[in-house]
């Protein structure tokens, strides 16, 4: 709990622990009883984030961004039963859906004729040991806490890669940096955020 207090000063506006629980609850209500009121609450919080995600890096037109918001929120409703609050935070779950829908939309726009959807890529065995799950919760809180300490150039690249959907090579071209610099900034950021797994 102390960690959340610290993060309140970091300038990163992620929901506090309590609010995260609120979104998990909404998802659980939707799964249990197709609760439209819960969905509406969820929509008001997440739809604007999904729209921001769709528009970042101006990768999608306004029309496609709206289409993506609808698609993602509809999928949230349809897949709510697959949500397991023990395994993932609600916002990680919604983010994953948004990311997959966006990837699929990009491929559709490029006229890919593929039997695969981004959803098919989920590994067969999710990490299910209680220990791994606890680790994951800690890692999320920690990432949030440490995000504010990243140098701006590293934070910028992470945003380009994750939010704008740019490959390392595209980010390098856009920022006029050597590819090696981009890669090493990403790696440094990942080390600083303590998410690198030793092996």
């Amino acid at each position: 709990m102390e960690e959340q207090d610290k993060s309140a000063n970091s300038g990163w506006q992620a929901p506090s622990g309590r609010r995260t629980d609120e979104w998990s609850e909404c998802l659980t209500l939707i799964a249990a009883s197709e609760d439209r009121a819960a969905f509406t609450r969820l929509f008001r919080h997440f739809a604007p984030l999904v729209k921001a995600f769709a528009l970042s890096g101006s990768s999608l037109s306004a029309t496609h961004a709206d289409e993506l918001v609808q698609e993602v929120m509809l999928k949230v409703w349809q897949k709510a039963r697959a949500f397991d609050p023990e395994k993932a935070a609600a916002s990680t779950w919604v983010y994953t859906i948004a990311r997959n829908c966006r990837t699929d939309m990009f491929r559709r726009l490029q006229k890919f004729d593929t039997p695969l959807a981004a959803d098919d890529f989920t590994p067969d065995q999710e990490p299910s040991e209680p220990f791994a799950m606890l680790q994951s919760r800690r890692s999320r809180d920690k990432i949030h806490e440490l995000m504010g300490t990243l140098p701006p150039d590293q934070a910028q690249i992470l945003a380009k890669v994750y939010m704008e959907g740019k490959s390392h090579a595209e980010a390098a071209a856009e920022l006029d940096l050597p590819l090696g610099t981009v890669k090493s900034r990403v790696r440094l950021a990942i080390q600083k955020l303590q998410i690198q797994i030793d092996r």
Partner: protein
Amino acid sequence: MAKFHPSVDLLTEYTAGILPLAQSACISAHLNYCQQCQQQTARLQDLGAVLFDGLTPVPVGDAMLDRVLARLDEEPPLSYRRADDLSLGRLPAVLQRLMRGDFSELSWKKLTSSLAISHLKTGDPGYEFALYHIKAGGRIPEHTHRGSEMTLVLQGGFSDAEGSYHEGDFIYRDASDTHAPTALQSEDCICLAVLDAPLRFTGWKYRWMNPFLQLKAG
């Protein structure tokens, strides 16, 4: 337990959803064998989610909410319901989707006496996605890559000058590497290879084949 893994760079691009489709499929298949990389991608996904939470929200009007509410009773498209009816044992889901049957039901094209290839269709126009079947103890002629190559061992194993690889191991090579993989003596080896340019055999005996080794992407 896999011993050879994708780099963090690749896993980052994979979790951000920006890796080319064929390469993503290969990484996803590796995750099926590798708890460590599953954990690493889970954490990288958490990173994405923290960034997502930190975005400045862009207002969405009530009209949009109404439109979505009106669609809630729609039947989900069939593709959301995953067909797990294939009994392909331990094969990664993404391959099961592409194969519709087991290895013996694929059409294999013989390249040498100990090597056969079967192309799978991913729809990615930039990459060839193919399974290689190397007979036990058989050798792939020495070759270089004109581009990058991802390899994932699905069954058996092989070795080259740099190491010995078994089920679940992931190897990434670029144009500068030359190697001549040899399947383990004990059993046949099947691996998945994702290439963005055709192989080029370097030994005199097989060099004549190079003009025929066209990339079959898509």
